[in-house]
């Protein structure tokens, strides 16, 4: 068998696979030792068809995911926290179905702060606070001040609440450690307001101006659906006119999650994880933070265990479909 294996694997390009029949566990072990010794990769038993008594070998070592994806895309580099699910808007494509009347599902500052501290100790490098609308929380400002002592923070917001109490919260946050990511879906109000509500576009634009005038780094994120006909170049030009750096302009498609019945179908098999905490547990990705299939564990604390678990699951996923996984950009 090994000589046949050598012949077969030597004819493969790097990354190609070959499957051989194995009569029993000792033959599988022989193939494992051979793969290890010769610089090839045996697909883990848990994801190959053990019941069919086969072993699958990939020619060469797998490409390092950090090299392929970029270190910043590796699971655990960023931590997402859904602070709450209530929102002053009820966008028709919201991936978690947020709105004014939904169950708030707040995590609360007393849970969030230890999670952030432990995540930073684990190796997380950036914190994303999202919702719902985080600026509905009366304690957001002081909580962000505390979070920012451990990690740089990006707050995902619709930018509509930067006045009164909301403005005071904004002003309390450290400019050098906190950035705002404001949702703007179109260069004019028409499409944005169609999905998010009348007048929301104008207030979001005003929010960008306020956050910038307060000295914050502002990122903008557009969620675009195919039928809306939003021109990406036109949108980019508009963002340029708002003096948003190109690196801070995120344009992504609608995901078929939450309130959205249309859009890009995403599954944990094909999605690079972005560890996401909600009051319900730890999820694979923020875009699927209410999807039961994307629930990694309902045990949130200690967050280091959940981060370990996602890292290990991703390692297995990388083995399984290294060429198939994709990134869905939320930030």
């Amino acid at each position, binding site marked *: 068998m*090994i*000589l046949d294996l*050598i*012949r077969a694997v*030597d*004819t*493969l*390009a*790097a*990354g*190609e696979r070959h499957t051989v029949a194995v009569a029993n566990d000792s033959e599988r072990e*022989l193939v494992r*030792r*051979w793969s290890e*010794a*010769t*610089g090839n990769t045996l697909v883990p038993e848990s994801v190959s068809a053990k019941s069919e008594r086969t072993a699958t070998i990939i*020619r*060469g*070592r*797998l*490409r*390092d995911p*950090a*090299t392929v994806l970029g270190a910043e895309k590796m699971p655990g580099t960023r931590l997402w926290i859904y602070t709450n699910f209530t929102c002053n808007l009820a966008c028709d494509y919201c991936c978690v179905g947020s709105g004014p009347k939904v169950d708030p599902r707040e995590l609360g500052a007393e849970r969030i702060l230890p999670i952030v501290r432990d995540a930073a100790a684990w190796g997380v490098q950036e914190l994303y606070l999202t919702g719902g609308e985080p600026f509905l929380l009366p304690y957001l400002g002081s909580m962000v001040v505390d979070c920012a002592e451990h990690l740089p923070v990006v707050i995902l917001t619709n930018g509509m609440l930067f006045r009164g109490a909301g403005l005071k919260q904004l002003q309390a946050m450290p400019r050098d450690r906190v950035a705002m990511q404001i949702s703007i879906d179109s260069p004019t109000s028409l499409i944005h307001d169609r999905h998010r509500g009348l007048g929301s576009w104008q207030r979001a634009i005003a929010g960008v101006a306020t956050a910038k005038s307060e000295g914050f780094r502002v990122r903008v994120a557009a969620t675009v659906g195919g039928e809306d006909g939003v021109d990406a170049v036109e949108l980019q030009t508009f963002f340029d006119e708002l003096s948003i750096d190109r690196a801070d302009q995120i344009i992504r498609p609608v995901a078929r999650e939450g309130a959205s019945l249309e859009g890009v179908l995403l599954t944990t098999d094909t999605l690079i994880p972005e560890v996401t905490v909600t009051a319900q547990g730890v999820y694979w990705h923020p875009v699927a933070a209410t999807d039961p299939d994307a629930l990694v564990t309902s045990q949130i604390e200690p967050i280091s265990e959940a981060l370990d678990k996602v890292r290990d699951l991703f390692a297995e996923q990388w083995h399984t479909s290294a060429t198939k996984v994709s990134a869905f950009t939320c930030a």
Partner: protein
Amino acid sequence: MTELLTLGAVAYSPAVVGVWEGMKEYFADSDAPFDFVLYSNYGRLVDALRKGEVDIAWNTNLAYVRAMLQTDNGCRALAMRDIDTVYSTVFVSAAGSGRTGPGAVAGRRLALGSADSAHAAILPLHYLQQAGVDLDTITVIRFNSDLGKHGDTGRSEIDALEAVIAGEADVAAIGISTWEKIGEGDFLPGAVEKVWQTPDYSHCAFTVLSSSPPELTAAWTRHLMAMNPSDPEQRRIMTLEGVKDHWATPALDGYQSLFTAVERQGIDPTW
């Protein structure tokens, strides 16, 4: 703009493309970036080096020797893999044969790899003769499975091994790489055992014409030597090319046996 070097190699396996794409990527930001051209055989690669169509040739030991002979020693080696400085040929027999030492090959049926494989055909005979074995007593069975590739595919050595296991040959001569690929026999339990191993000699080397700009080839070699096996991506490429730990400075003395063998066996230096 930095001058782009051209590296030539032989496409003996689809994996080669991944190796040189990876190397090209690693060199892209260096002082000596390169692009590569793949040839179907080492004869064409040596021709291309001689004509200046490639700046650097990734040569087997026989290709290096032929390049030297064709250019009146007008080539120089830049670097080789760590394994190339201590290459050897291993003679194997069926497990339990009890054969040991070069003398045990005398009078036997010896399975050799492709005729242009230095490690599986040319040097085995050379070292046997040097050890005092009368080659006329040996029945040579040749497996010319990958002619032109200088034994790079390893296919002819697997054929030779199978002949031993099937009882069609008494002894097979295989390169140390193939010997290690079968775990020094461990991955073929109860099938084969080592009879004898030749002294070390040199195998592949990056080769340039002596007239190549020394500063450019020095920059290229420096960057090659700086490859870091601790870097996962660099490690992946190095492993795919067969480097164990590091690239090495050429061990030129290790080519002497092949120069002698080529001369004594009358192997065509020009192809």
